């Protein structure tokens, strides 16, 4: 069995689309666990970039086939570490010793990373596949701080909600509806992100406040709402696909790509934005100043910025890529997909996350209190 096929099966198993028996059967794992260790490829230093590049990223975000192709090409295996929130990613890097070469960070964190000298300006001579003109300014903008380029957009998206349309009497289309149905028909079936920005931000939208508010009075109302709905939640987690797929959860805060992946496999799961507004965002590739394998990081970034490779990424993760060269390779269906590209009037109500939310002590404490409640 090919490595890529294996990873595909593992992914299907993880998401619950296939049974354990199927997984062990098709992969031959049931019988061959012991053989595997010996058969792993051990190619050393093909391009002088070492045998490992470590990346901090998000769940369901990177095409394992692409990462395997990178390993075939360079000999360096990509070690993927997934996170549930930017805050956690920031904290691990801040504490030191994380050992990451590439970090996938969201727009509102970049200026703080730069201020704390935790990421470095990018050396474009090592990124021939990067073409500044190809990137959409409104998504690429936060990557440049004080005239220096620190981060390159990977993809952009929105934060909405995914719900099982067979369970909802009416389609959901607002954060008011989200929190109200959670306390009634959907009690015990809703998931809220384990992430201050969206958990608190969308609760703020319930009252019509700004997604980015740090006003103590408005935050207090949001906290009250969150603590009120907590007994009605299925879980607080940012890895919500498994529970949505196996039917444990019927409604979740959701990012574009997860909504697309869920809807692709289970058409009854719909993705919607809150009409009050919510978040629009872009995520960036950055290289930490502490990267142990800088050359490996550049090699990986350059590989992923190749429009052909990046197009395959887009097909996997289901997010729009703000690179016109990649967009040109997409099918009309993808380009006109209402999940990837919501209607203009819905988009205009959305806000980019603000840097202050990352460091605001009040938001951090409210999130921690909500979880410990």
């Amino acid at each position, binding site marked *: 069995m090919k490595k890529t096929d294996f990873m595909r099966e593992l992914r299907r198993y993880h998401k*619950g689309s296939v049974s*354990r028996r199927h997984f062990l059967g098709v992969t031959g794992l049931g019988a061959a666990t012991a053989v595997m260790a010996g058969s792993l490829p051990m190619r050393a230093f093909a391009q002088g970039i070492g045998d490992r590049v470590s990346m901090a990223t998000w769940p369901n975000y990177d095409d394992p086939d692409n990462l395997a192709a990178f390993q075939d090409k360079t000999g360096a295996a990509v070690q993927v570490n997934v996170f549930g*929130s930017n*805050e*956690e990613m*920031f*904290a*691990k890097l*801040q504490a030191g010793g994380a050992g990451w070469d590439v970090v996938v960070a969201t727009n509102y964190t970049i200026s*703080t990373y730069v*201020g*704390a000298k935790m990421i470095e300006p990018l050396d474009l001579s090592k990124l021939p596949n990067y073409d500044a003109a190809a990137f959409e300014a409104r998504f690429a903008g936060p990557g440049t701080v004080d005239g220096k380029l620190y981060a390159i957009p990977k993809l952009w998206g929105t934060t909405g909600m995914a719900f099982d349309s067979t369970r909802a009497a009416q389609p959901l289309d607002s954060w008011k509806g989200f929190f109200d149905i959670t306390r009634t028909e959907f009690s*015990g079936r809703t998931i809220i992100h*384990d992430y*201050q920005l969206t958990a608190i931000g969308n609760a703020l939208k319930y009252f019509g406040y700004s997604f980015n508010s740090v006003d103590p009075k408005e935050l207090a109302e949001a906290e009250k709402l969150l603590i009120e709905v*907590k007994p009605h*939640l*299925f*879980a*607080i*987690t940012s890895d919500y696909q498994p*529970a949505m797929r*196996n*039917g*444990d959860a019927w409604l979740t805060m959701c990012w574009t790509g997860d909504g697309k992946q869920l809807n692709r496999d289970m058409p009854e799961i719909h993705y919607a934005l809150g009409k009050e507004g919510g978040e629009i965002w872009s995520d960036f590739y950055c290289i930490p100043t502490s990267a142990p394998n800088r050359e490996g990081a550049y090699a990986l970034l350059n590989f992923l910025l190749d429009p052909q490779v990046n197009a395959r990424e887009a097909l996997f993760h289901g997010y729009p890529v703000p690179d016109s060269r990649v967009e040109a390779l997409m099918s009309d269906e993808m380009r006109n997909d209402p999940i990837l590209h919501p209607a203009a009037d819905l988009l205009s109500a959305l806000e980019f996350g603000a840097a202050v939310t*990352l*460091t605001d*002590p009040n938001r*951090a*404490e409210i*999130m*921690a*209190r909500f*979880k*410990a*409640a």
Partner: protein
Amino acid sequence: MALSNRQARWLLLGPAGLWYAMLLVLPLAVVLVYSFGERGAAGGYQPAFTLAQYANLATRWTAFKNTLMLAPLGTVAALLIAYPLAYFLAVRVNPRWRTLLLVLVIVPFWTSILIRSYAWIFLLGGRGIPALLADLGLGDWRLINTPFAVLVGIVYGYMPLMFFPIYVSLEKLDRKLLEAASDLGSPPWRSFVQVTLPLSLPGVATGSMLVFILLMGEYLIPQMLGGGKVFFVGNALVDLFLQSRNWAFGSAMSVTLVAVMLVVVTLYMRFLKRIGAAREDVGLM
């Protein structure tokens, strides 16, 4: 050069002393100092001298409550399951089968607790046991992300730690004592209560202590089977150091957890001592 007794003693104590100083005393001292500090502007720690962090502890009452309820409950549940099993294996079972049965208890322990807890996510999730119960017409059950799920994970994960000390103390049991009791007209239940049980108490005490202390600091099982809804102090601590990056408050909470544990363990030791003393009194009669 010959070493005097005194010098030799210090030399021999050196490695262990260094170990304690570097890996226990120093980190605890750092945590204690941090607990009087403040959260840095972008998170982390900023030196200060304030009791504000301790004043904020009440906001985490639920986490303490969950821990202080589920840790003892988990310990008792593990004891209730481990004791009969250990008794059966050590006393009742045909010695020919004993090794095999012991291996069956040990083997699952070779797998990482992470993997074993992960398995429970599927077992307790909507397509696992609840689906089976629904098929049998036993109603709509939600198991995953409840205190019950966490309790199951705890009992399953920690049972061997309870089992082995009890098993060892029962295995050493002198059968002649039971024969003597029987000869003196004691019915089996009375022999168990007056002979077997008291002699196995050291194993019960050790096992309970092991499980209880580890449970007070538990993080993984509530994280995996509690879905962010059944929070232990350990989970609240991880949040304070990672998500909200409030090291000062996290330190204050660690100090409090250590203090609570010391109090509970001291009370427990005292309780054991009293039982031991009571037994001696009975023995004298």
